[in-house]
């Protein structure tokens, strides 16, 4: 099947799956190389198949909606799940557009599919890490963590819940959580009240007796949290129940002691309990991957685990715990997820001190003075005493930098793929790449190319205009010679030196106050096309190893795009070269055709010229015959005259035959076999002029010379023929009454040469034809079809002149006239 678009080869170059299908029936009529790579089917396997059955397409919306969008809006884009030839599923970002014929009827649908499976996998990785967190929760001793439906039925049942309450998941899932309460509590409506309170205030906490599977009682604390989705709809409840039996025992003991030993002892015991509780909590939380802190409203850190210390930039927990809140906060710059400064009073920990449950926050923060940026999910919960006073805030920090980075990088590279697949313009790609890199990766991006070994800055993108001169940036030639990928996390003068042209430039580089530099080569195959350089300055952002990897990914894609564009341009140029070659061939053919036509004309003319003398001789002979038979005798003088004429005509005819033979020799590039004799040049030219003047009275042919007699050793018949041809031409192309001047003189520089010029005031020769005027069968464009001729006269003249060791030149001006100059040596001389 034919590919319907000339676009085909172009689409083949794009690193995406390009498919063209017939509108309405969805039969595949074009299947790009990218599609083959993406799905595994070769064009001959895919062409003619119906797209969605071949790819087992799963649509995110009803298929009818996709078809409607294509029909009404002409395009659709969204995510599709396709099945590859090997059975693996791929997630693609699909862009589809309808192609209309000139009448506006839909003909084809062009479908561009980009593989985003990796991005989807990253999302799955994030989910997995949540799963790991769940496992962690499952294994925390003394807690039961589970979920309830909005009606209070148990939905999930964790391992920790099983350990605490003995129920296996199949025994409890689907049952109402009221089962965990005593009959008295159920009768008092406690379970329903709990759900209502959680619904109204978001979260509720209660303590009381609970039942195990075997009916035994234990004292527990439960926190019930309402779970809502983004739209605010109730999804269910999360329950965290902690077995407080031991604490209850301790409290009862303490109460007893209090009663028995007095207040002081009670306080000691309470402190011991708090210490014990803290130690226990610390033991539980120390190994948790999230950073966890417990801070008093006064800012005293009651507890912090190792991860919290690390996230906040401290080497040890002790060091962290000793720091004051002000000291800790001073170390950071904190931004919201969009990069705007985040107000400190909205930090979840601060909000929770006010007694409110703060929303979870995604924050970006950076240790001041050159740290890398990190992302963190922050939650905080206030812990209150019986009097409802906030005693501490427990904050949980989850470092999501890696998954956030991976997600950002995947999104960035997907955008890069899309942007670069849009352009095959070599000159446009560097700027596209630079614009993509700023501000996503750096404050500055420069792309330098080494085309034909000449360094050239192909593109510059800058995040904010701070008035720097582009010329101040690191030098293109220096960067191009930097070789391997390089990362400079914190720029020092020593790092700048290799990129400076001279001390003055070095000073300018310093003034840029660069923070980090990444510079990577653009390599396609084994060719280094140029270099991509990222710089950070005003944002104070420090680039790291991961940024280097991203820069290399970007450089790889940029190099591929440039290489594709180069190949595309070369193929275009080849096409252009073919077009030019064809044109040249066509011109040559046309010229050949003209030459052949003039040669035919020449042959016709030559035979005509030969027939004329034969016709005359024949007619003269017959005239004599007629007169003889009519009168019986012819007067001797009449007979004498006619016979003489016959003789002369025969001589002329023989000269013509000789000329034809000369022409054949000329055609075979053979020199003439000259029949040299002693001749007076002055007489020869004068006689010739007289002869030509006798033939025409249309114009005057003048002869000028200051010479009286010059002896030459020439083949005079041939020189006469050459001159005749030149004079014939001059007369033929001159208007009536415009004289033809023939001049004879000795050559300026040597007296053993003569120059004969024939000057007319005729139509002239176009300058583009002047070079060809002595070529056989070549005639000026302005005389073809206007004047009879064969294009042989001047060629023959040149042949004769050159056989005598001379030269012939033409100078001409259209509408003014032509001068032919013949230089001839008087004697034969050895070359």
């Amino acid at each position, binding site marked *: 099947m034919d590919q319907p678009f000339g676009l085909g080869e172009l689409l083949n170059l794009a690193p995406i799956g390009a498919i063209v299908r017939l509108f309405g029936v969805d039969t595949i009529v074009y299947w790009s190389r990218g599609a083959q790579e993406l799905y595994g089917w070769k064009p001959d396997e895919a062409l003619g198949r119906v797209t969605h059955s071949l790819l087992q397409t799963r649509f995110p919306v009803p298929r009818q909606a996709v078809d409607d969008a294509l029909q009404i809006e002409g395009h659709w884009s969204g995510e599709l799940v396709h099945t590859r030839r090997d059975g693996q599923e791929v997630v693609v970002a699909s862009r589809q557009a309808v192609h209309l014929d000139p009448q506006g009827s839909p003909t084809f649908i062009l479908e561009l599919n980009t593989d985003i499976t990796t991005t989807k996998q990253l999302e799955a990785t994030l989910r997995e890490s949540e799963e790991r967190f769940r496992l962690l929760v499952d294994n925390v001793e003394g807690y039961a963590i589970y979920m309830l439906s909005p009606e209070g039925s148990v939905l999930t049942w964790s391992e920790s819940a099983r350990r605490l309450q003995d129920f296996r998941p199949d025994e409890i899932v689907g049952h109402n959580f009221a089962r965990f309460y005593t009959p008295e509590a159920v009768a008092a409506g406690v379970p329903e009240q709990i759900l209502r309170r959680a619904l109204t205030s978001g979260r509720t906490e209660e303590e009381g007796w609970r039942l195990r599977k075997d009916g035994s009682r234990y004292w527990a604390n439960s926190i019930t949290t309402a779970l809502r989705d983004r739209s605010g709809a109730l999804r269910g409840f999360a329950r965290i129940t902690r077995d407080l039996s031991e604490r209850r025992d301790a409290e009862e003991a303490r109460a007893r002691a209090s009663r028995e030993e007095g207040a002081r002892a009670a306080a000691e015991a309470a402190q011991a309990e708090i210490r014990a509780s803290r130690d226990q909590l610390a033991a539980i939380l120390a190994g948790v991957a999230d950073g966890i802190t417990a801070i008093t409203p006064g800012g005293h850190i009651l507890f912090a685990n190792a991860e919290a210390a690390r996230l906040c930039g401290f080497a040890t927990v002790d060091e962290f715990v000793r720091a004051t809140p002000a000291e800790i906060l001073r170390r950071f710059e904190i931004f919201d997820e969009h990069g705007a400064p985040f107000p400190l009073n909205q930090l979840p920990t601060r909000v929770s001190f006010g007694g409110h449950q703060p929303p979870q926050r995604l924050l970006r923060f950076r240790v001041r003075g050159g740290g890398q940026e990190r992302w963190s999910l922050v939650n905080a919960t206030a812990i209150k005493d019986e009097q409802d006073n906030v005693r501490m805030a427990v904050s949980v920090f989850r470092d999501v930098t890696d998954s956030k980075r991976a997600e950002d990088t995947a999104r960035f590279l997907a955008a890069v793929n899309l942007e670069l697949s849009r352009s095959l313009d070599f000159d446009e790609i560097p700027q596209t790449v630079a614009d993509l890199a700023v501000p996503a990766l750096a404050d500055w991006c420069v792309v330098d190319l080494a085309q034909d070994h000449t360094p050239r800055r192909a593109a510059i993108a800058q995040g904010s205009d701070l008035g720097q001169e582009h010329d101040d940036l690191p030098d293109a030639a220096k960067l191009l010679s930097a070789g391997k990928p390089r990362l400079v996390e914190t720029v020092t003068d020593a790092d700048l030196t290799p990129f400076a042209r001279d001390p003055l430039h070095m000073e300018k580089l310093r003034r840029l106050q660069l923070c980090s530099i990444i510079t990577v080569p653009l390599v396609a195959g084994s060719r280094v096309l140029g270099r991509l350089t990222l710089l950070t300055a005003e944002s104070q952002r420090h680039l790291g190893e991961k940024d280097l990897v991203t820069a290399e990914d970007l450089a790889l894609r940029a190099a591929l795009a440039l290489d594709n564009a180069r190949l595309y341009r070369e193929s275009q140029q080849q096409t252009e070269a073919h077009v030019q070659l064809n044109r040249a061939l066509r011109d040559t053919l046309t010229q050949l055709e003209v030459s052949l036509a003039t040669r035919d004309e020449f042959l*016709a003319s030559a*035979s*005509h*010229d030969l*027939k*004329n*003398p*034969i*016709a*005359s*001789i*024949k*007619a*003269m002979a*017959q*005239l004599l015959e*007629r*007169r003889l038979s*009519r009168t019986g005798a012819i007067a001797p003088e009449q007979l004498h005259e006619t016979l003489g*004429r016959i003789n*002369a*005509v025969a001589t002329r005819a023989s000269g013509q035959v000789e000329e034809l033979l000369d022409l054949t020799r000329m055609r075979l590039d053979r020199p003439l076999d000259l029949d040299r004799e002693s001749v007076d040049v002055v007489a020869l030219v004068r006689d010739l002029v007289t002869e030509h003047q006798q*033939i*025409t*009275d*249309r114009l005057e042919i003048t002869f000028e010379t200051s010479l009286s007699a010059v002896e030459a050793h020439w083949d005079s018949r041939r020189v006469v023929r050459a001159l005749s041809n030149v004079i014939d031409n001059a007369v*033929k192309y001159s208007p*009536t009454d415009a004289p033809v001047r023939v001049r004879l003189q000795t050559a300026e520089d040597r007296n053993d040469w003569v120059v004969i010029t024939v000057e007319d005031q005729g139509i002239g020769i176009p300058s583009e034809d002047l070079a060809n005027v002595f070529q056989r069968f070549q005639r000026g464009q302005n005389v073809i079809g206007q004047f*009879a001729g064969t294009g042989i006269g001047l060629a023959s003249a040149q042949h004769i002149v050159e056989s005598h060791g001379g030269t012939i030149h033409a100078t001409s001006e259209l509408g003014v006239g032509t001068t032919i100059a013949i230089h001839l040596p008087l004697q034969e001389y050895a070359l």
Partner: protein
Amino acid sequence: MNGAAQPARVLVVDDDPDMLLVIEAALSDEGLQVQTAADGPSAIDLMQLRPPDLLILDVTLPSMDSSSVAERMRELRGDAAPVLVITADGRAAEKARTLRAYGYLRKPFELTNLITSVLTGLQR
């Protein structure tokens, strides 16, 4: 024959002086008055002076199209004026048709044929 009173006038146009001479001699022998011209312009000049009864035209004339000579002849002597074409060219018949000649002769020709053709032309 046109009677004895006034000999018929024939104009011969050819760029070959030898051919002009021999035709002039042959037709004069037949009692015709013969004028010759070597090119178109001089032929037209002669015709203006005294229009001939018959025109013999070589169709490969230099400078001026032989058709303008034939045309001038018709302007002067009416549409049926006799024109005889002689040519060394292979396309004699075609040229004769273009010039609306009553006949043509290919060079080299038999002198008798020329004379017969001319006499026939004069009787038309």
